[in-house]
């Protein structure tokens, strides 16, 4: 017998057989069907209400291309403007994820993104007309797509798997993204949108038996993630996971030696003028919260305190930072905006912050159900 098989069989003998009856499975199927019927009903009502609203207020309608009613529209009929091979006879292949939505901070108006670009981890182009996002291909594999915000011109960029989130270069000509399913380690690549060529920026190595309970380190994703271009487009701020540690670093976009900015922080991003670094989690020295520092990571100080603050994003004008607060648990994630000058925070919405579309519009994903 294969020696590894005997090790695996021995390991497997520690797990008791699964106590699962067919009846439980059938009940789960029935629950799923019932939920689908309810969702379809909600969509039907939403469509009816929207139709009535359109008929009664056609004179003032100014954005007819996007549904204005937030809701579980992923179970609805196929998008007529679905433009890529991901479309099936029952609609886009991605039905498990709700589309994100835009929220106008001035008016509070929410506009759902079209179903044809349902996915996660949206990143807006600098001019606010395009989004990069993660969605599933026909085989159910996470891939990197770009599309216009109105849901047209959907293009699948990767074929062999991709991770999010991304960042567009300040000139809109390139996108930095993490990838590396095949290599067992994630690295950051930059895609030139004009030529379609990619270049590898970071060169993290796969973990070699340094994780697991025996060494107190979880075997989670390893490598370089969360790329954020510097305002001049010459460098990328990113987070590196090695073993159980995570640090925010900066590296030239052409590759080369990286420099530590804040150790123990989760995600870092530079202000539009390049003078200030914002980090989620304040690093090993200060602990949790949302912090700002000089661009080189020095003079780190808390801007907002809280146990579960992460994913800071500067507004394009550099006056505000949007961030996530998960103090109420995963399904209670909330998006806030803080005024950098005054430190005043404002609740925006339930959901996950993805990006700013412009100085007063945020891209947000609904919380999972």
């Amino acid at each position, binding site marked *: 017998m294969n020696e*590894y098989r005997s090790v695996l069989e021995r390991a497997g003998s*520690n797990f008791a057989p699964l106590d699962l009856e*067919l009846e439980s*499975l059938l009940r789960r199927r029935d629950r799923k069907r019932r939920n689908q019927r309810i969702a379809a009903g909600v969509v039907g009502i939403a469509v009816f209400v929207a139709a009535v609203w359109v008929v009664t207020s056609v004179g003032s309608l100014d954005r007819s291309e996007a549904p204005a009613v937030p809701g579980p529209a992923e179970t609805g009929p196929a998008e007529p403007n679905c433009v890529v091979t991901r479309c099936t006879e029952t609609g886009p292949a991605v039905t498990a994820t709700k589309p994100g939505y835009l929220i106008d901070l001035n008016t509070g108006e929410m506009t759902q993104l079209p179903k044809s670009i349902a996915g996660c981890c949206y990143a807006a182009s600098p001019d606010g007309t395009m989004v990069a996002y993660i969605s*599933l291909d026909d085989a159910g594999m996470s891939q990197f797509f770009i599309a216009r915000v109105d849901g047209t011109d959907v293009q699948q960029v990767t074929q062999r798997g991709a*991770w999010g989130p991304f960042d567009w270069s300040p000139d809109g000509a390139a996108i930095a993204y993490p990838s590396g399913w*095949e290599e067992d380690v994630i690295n950051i690549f930059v895609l030139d949108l004009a030529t379609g060529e990619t270049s590898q920026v970071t060169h993290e190595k796969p973990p070699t038996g340094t*994780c697991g309970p*025996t060494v107190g380190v979880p075997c989670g994703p390893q490598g370089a993630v969360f790329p954020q271009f510097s305002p001049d487009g010459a460098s990328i701020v990113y987070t590196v996971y090695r073993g159980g540690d995570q640090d925010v670093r900066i590296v030239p976009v052409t590759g080369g030696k990286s420099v530590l900015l804040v150790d123990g922080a989760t995600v870092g991003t530079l202000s539009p003028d390049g003078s200030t670094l914002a980090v989620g989690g304040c690093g090993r020295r200060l602990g949790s919260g949302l912090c700002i520092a000089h661009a080189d990571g020095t003079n780190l100080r808390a801007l907002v305190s809280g146990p579960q603050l992460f994913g800071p994003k500067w507004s394009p004008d550099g006056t505000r930072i949007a961030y996530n607060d998960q103090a109420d648990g995963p399904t209670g994630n909330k998006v806030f905006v803080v005024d950098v000058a005054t430190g005043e925070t404002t609740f925006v919405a339930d959901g996950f912050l993805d990006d700013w579309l412009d100085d007063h519009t945020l891209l947000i994903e609904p919380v999972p159900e």
Partner: protein
Amino acid sequence: MSEIARFSVVGPETDVAASPTDQFEAFFEAEKDQLYLALCLVTRNRHEAEDLTQDAFLRLLERWDRVAEMEDPHGYLYRTAMNSFRRRYGRALRTAKRSIQLVPADDEIAEIDERDAAVRSLAGLSPRQRAAVVLVDLLGFRSEEAARMLGIRASTLRMHASRAHAALKETMSRE
């Protein structure tokens, strides 16, 4: 291919004239424990393994009329389960970003680690390395088939298996 051969994974005693529901039940009973065990070893989390097992069988149940006609429903079951595992692993980054625990932690895994060197030896492998050895060494899938299940190339799968073998050998020799 004969009906008997098509359902050979269920066992020769399977009544091929049975209703689709009966056929599915026989398949479910024959496969559920091994799939769950494989997923326990891959995920090292019994809650997640149970969830993935249920998901995989549910997907097969929803399209059982087509799956039952396949030459290898056993392989299809594992492809489905590994596809779900792959997607969840992909979402792990979002989990890191958002501090979401998709499934509860398996608190007892540390106890099992403590008492059994074999389980402990798997802890140091990455999830994909564990998936590679479980699919190839334990379940006997060919590298090409296992690679398709994990959405990677066969050469990459062999690399993961090789690294896993080296790590297992080293850990077991120390124990």
